[in-house]
């Protein structure tokens, strides 16, 4: 009893609402959940039925069962019924495998997997693109097309609550068409082993009401107002801007234009505090082994904190 309580508690610890295929917020994940439930309950009913037949067969009085009856049961329950059930399930499930319909007007979001972060480019129809990183915002109720690729190794883009996973392959662009139906803050992960920090390569997904999404997109296009204090000077002097863009341009490392708006630091792994940001600057490999960013262990903590504070004030 105590053991089973512990096991149940451990299993329940896996339950959450932000990164779970059992807590869908999109069309595809919702139909997958329905199918999963039908399959699980169906399998349970069949297993109980088989167990019941087994018990009946063992308990039947001598002479009640004959060979011909047994063979008939094998034919019906072993071949005909499973064939019909499997065909019915296939016909029911196949339309769900069809990608959602899309038009040229749909918002396109280009996401590139890199060890161990995500380069994001929003490409709304008829508007200039918006560059971001490690965070994806999508409007609820509108079709969104993700164009997925990678630069170094194979990654996989998976937002469990939204849709199935899709590989990100260098030199190839895969498309994933999604439609969210519930606003909220969720999480996506890399689902293909890609190196030391594979398990630490995540991103935030924010499903927004269409009006607030449009407003956010318009505001985000304006460069954020930054003070020219000590943080700015240290950022430039330490060479941070060699890799990180602050104006939404192409850059080697993650774009930091609206860093203050992000709800995690280091691609979905740390709380967005000034302290965590400063610690990441001085020693990125402690929280992200194998990351390409060099450590700035020689930088005094006060300087790292100043840069972190300065970065976080923009985009708020």
């Amino acid at each position: 009893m105590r053991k089973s309580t512990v096991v149940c508690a451990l299993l329940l610890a896996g339950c959450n609402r932000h990164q779970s295929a059992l807590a869908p917020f999109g069309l595809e994940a919702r139909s997958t959940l329905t199918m999963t439930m039908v399959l699980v309950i169906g399998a349970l009913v069949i297993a109980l039925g088989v167990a019941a037949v087994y018990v009946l067969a063992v308990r039947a009085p001598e002479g009640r069962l004959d060979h011909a009856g047994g063979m008939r049961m094998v034919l019906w329950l072993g071949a005909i019924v499973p064939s019909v059930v499997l065909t019915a399930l296939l016909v029911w499930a196949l339309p769900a495998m069809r990608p959602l319909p899309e038009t040229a007007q749909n918002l396109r979001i280009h996401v590139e997997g890199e060890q161990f972060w995500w380069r994001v480019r929003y490409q709304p129809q008829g508007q200039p693109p918006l560059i971001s990183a490690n965070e994806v915002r999508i409007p609820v109720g509108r079709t969104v097309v993700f164009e997925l690729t990678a630069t170094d190794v194979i990654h996989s883009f998976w937002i469990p609550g939204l849709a199935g996973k899709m590989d990100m392959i260098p030199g190839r662009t895969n498309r994933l068409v999604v439609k969210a139906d519930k606003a909220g803050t969720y999480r996506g992960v890399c689902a293909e082993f890609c190196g030391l920090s594979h398990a630490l390569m995540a991103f935030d997904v924010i499903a927004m009401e269409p009006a607030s999404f449009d407003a956010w997109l318009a505001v985000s296009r304006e460069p954020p107002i930054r003070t020219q204090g000590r943080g700015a000077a240290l950022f430039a002097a330490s060479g941070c801007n060699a890799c990180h863009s602050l104006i939404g341009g192409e850059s080697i490392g993650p774009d930091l234009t609206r860093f203050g708006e992000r709800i995690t630091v280091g691609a979905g792994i740390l709380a967005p505090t000034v302290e965590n940001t400063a610690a990441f600057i001085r020693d990125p490999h402690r929280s992200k082994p194998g990351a390409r960013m060099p450590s700035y262990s020689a930088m005094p903590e006060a300087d790292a904190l100043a840069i972190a504070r300065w970065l976080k004030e923009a985009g708020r």
Partner: protein
Amino acid sequence: MSERRKWHERLKVTLWTLIVPPTVWAGHFLFAYLWAAISCAKNGAFAKFPVLFTLGTLLALGVIALSGWVAWKQQRTIGDPPPHDEGTEVDRLRFLAKSTLLLAGLSFMAVLFTALPVVFIGDCR
């Protein structure tokens, strides 16, 4: 008796006829996949419910059903009486016929399961 002997002489199942249903399944599978891949690569789109595909599938199902029917007829051949101390011609025939029948059933479902995605998905992505 002599008439029945004639009947299996004409339609005798052998190891070669045993592999007809799975071979048709393999051929249909290859045909369906190659055809979809070539159609997507050359035309950039799936042909909607194409006649060639429908005919090919019906042909495959027909050949499998026919070989299953022949096997079904032959597995009803009366077996030798006991004791079954050694294999006889009739035992061999009954075994091959039953195996062919089961393979035909499996291959029929498999061809159907290969064809259904073409009808329901029809998308190159």
